[in-house]
């Protein structure tokens, strides 16, 4: 676990460096997803491949969190660490939002609300062919305001997709402010329950809890799709942006960058 926590620290530094180098990008929602992403790629997921690519699939439905995605993919050598600083630049392989052209990325994303349907399709294909592995899909909490998510939730339940595990990065903030002040999708747990999901909630910054929760979900074996709600803090790790919606999608100033680097050292 200590090793995974060290990886999280490095990922957080990478995120700050990438966004600083690009002078644009989404820090807040990347920082809140770090522990989940490290848990998935360094512990939970089966990264071996078969004729359909990696056995376990991952979809970053909240595609704006591309900095954390690329940093984690680099930590598993899908992409070269040196490439991280080309993020969002012309001629780079690292698009502002994830592109299927980037090694390790299963599908392009970034237009919110679409990932869960894609995950359903993948999970259905696995069921049709009796293939092993899970499909994981990370959504934002604000993203749950997209109607397509609930269309997909119905489909996941209807087709008993117990090989699908969805995550909600519940940091409580969206671009224009707190969820409760915009168009709240809350209560998130009760909504998913009503749509036929197993719902588990955990601290999204405790890597051990995340791993335990995923294992618990896998042991349920009740023919239902599952969602793990991660209570998180937007901007986690940089004290002066934590819980501040204004840092959803902007780069740090030069001064803030120096402060952030010191805090993450």
């Amino acid at each position, binding site marked *: 676990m200590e090793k995974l926590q060290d990886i999280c620290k490095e990922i957080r530094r990478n995120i700050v460096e990438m966004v600083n180098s690009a002078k644009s990008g989404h820090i807040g929602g990347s920082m809140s997803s770090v522990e989940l992403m490290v848990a998935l790629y360094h512990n939970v997921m089966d990264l071996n491949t078969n004729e359909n690519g990696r056995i376990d699939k991952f979809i970053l439905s909240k595609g704006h969190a591309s900095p954390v995605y690329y940093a984690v993919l680099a930590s598993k050598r899908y992409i070269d660490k040196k490439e991280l600083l080309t993020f969002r630049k012309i001629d780079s392989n690292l698009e502002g939002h994830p592109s*299927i052209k980037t090694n390790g990325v299963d599908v392009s994303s970034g237009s919110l609300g679409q990932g869960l349907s894609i995950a359903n399709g993948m999970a259905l294909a696995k069921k049709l062919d009796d293939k092993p592995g899970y499909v994981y899909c990370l959504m934002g909490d604000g993203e749950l305001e997209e109607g397509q998510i609930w269309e997909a939730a119905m489909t996941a339940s209807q*087709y008993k997709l117990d090989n699908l595990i969805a995550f909600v990065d519940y940091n409580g903030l969206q671009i224009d402010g707190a969820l409760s002040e915009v168009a709240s999708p809350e209560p998130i747990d009760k909504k998913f329950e009503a749509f036929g999901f197993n719902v588990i909630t955990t601290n999204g910054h405790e890597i051990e809890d995340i791993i335990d929760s995923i294992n618990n979900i896998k042991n349920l074996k009740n023919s239902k799709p599952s969602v793990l709600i991660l209570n998180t803090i937007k901007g986690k790790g940089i004290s002066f942006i934590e819980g501040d919606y204004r840092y959803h999608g902007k780069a740090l100033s030069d001064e803030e960058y120096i402060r952030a680097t010191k805090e993450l050292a």
Partner: protein
Amino acid sequence: MKSTRKAYGETLVVLGEEDKDVVVLDADLASATQTSMYKNKFPERHINVGIAEQDLVGTASGLALMGKKVYASTFAVFLTGRAYEQIRNTVAYNNLPVKLCATHAGLTVGEDGASHQMLEDIALMRVIPNMTVLSPADEIATKKIIRDIKDYNGPVYVRLGRSDVPAIYTNAEEFEIGKSIVHGDGIDAVVFATGYTVHIALEAMKELKQNKINIKVVDIYSIKPLDKETIISSAKEAKRIITIEEHNIIGGMGSAICEVLSELLPRQVIRIGVEDKFGKSGSAKAVMEKYKITKERIIEEVLK
């Protein structure tokens, strides 16, 4: 006489028998799109997502990413309208082999009226990078095209109709993407037609011939990519150039023809279609007459 949607449904059943990777999706319109035939035969490989077109396109994409050969169907207005951005950002941007087979395109939907008569789908689909746009004219064209695209490695939009159309082709005909089929060899006019309007143009050709006026009809079943070579060669020798489609004249097949001609052979083009209006309830025949997308209109334009 058979509708292209029915030919589509029948072909799916054949393909499903031949290839276990064929998966068909629908959004609660299986009995109308005719994918119900497939559902009855292969229930486990027919996914009905309910009245949820955005989810339809996303789920189809996920299946395609896992190597499935996916045909996704609903009415053209819902597929290309409601789920436009899913088609753009998920199907096309990822260049996925999803076959978007939309039925009930155009005015010939008839009685259901304007809300269900899709007149902008060709425009919407042909501006998306990676997208191929096909529009078969009869049963055989549909059957061949639906079969040919099964293993095509990229997104395809197929425009199908509700109403019956007469048989035009025999099994010997081939429908290669990016090609067209030329009927007749007259030079008094060339008429570019697509889908339902091909048989209308052929009837006009026949009638004009009785009066010693000889035209050529080109079936533009492949709207994107276009058969530029045939378009140029047939336009070059023709005295008049006419296009006809049950679609808005803005952005449709006629516009696509104009784009080619304006670059390579600037000529006047008469576009017959819906003139930037919504449709209307009525029998398919009555609606087409009201909007003047008829054999008589072609003849009138040729004789002008």
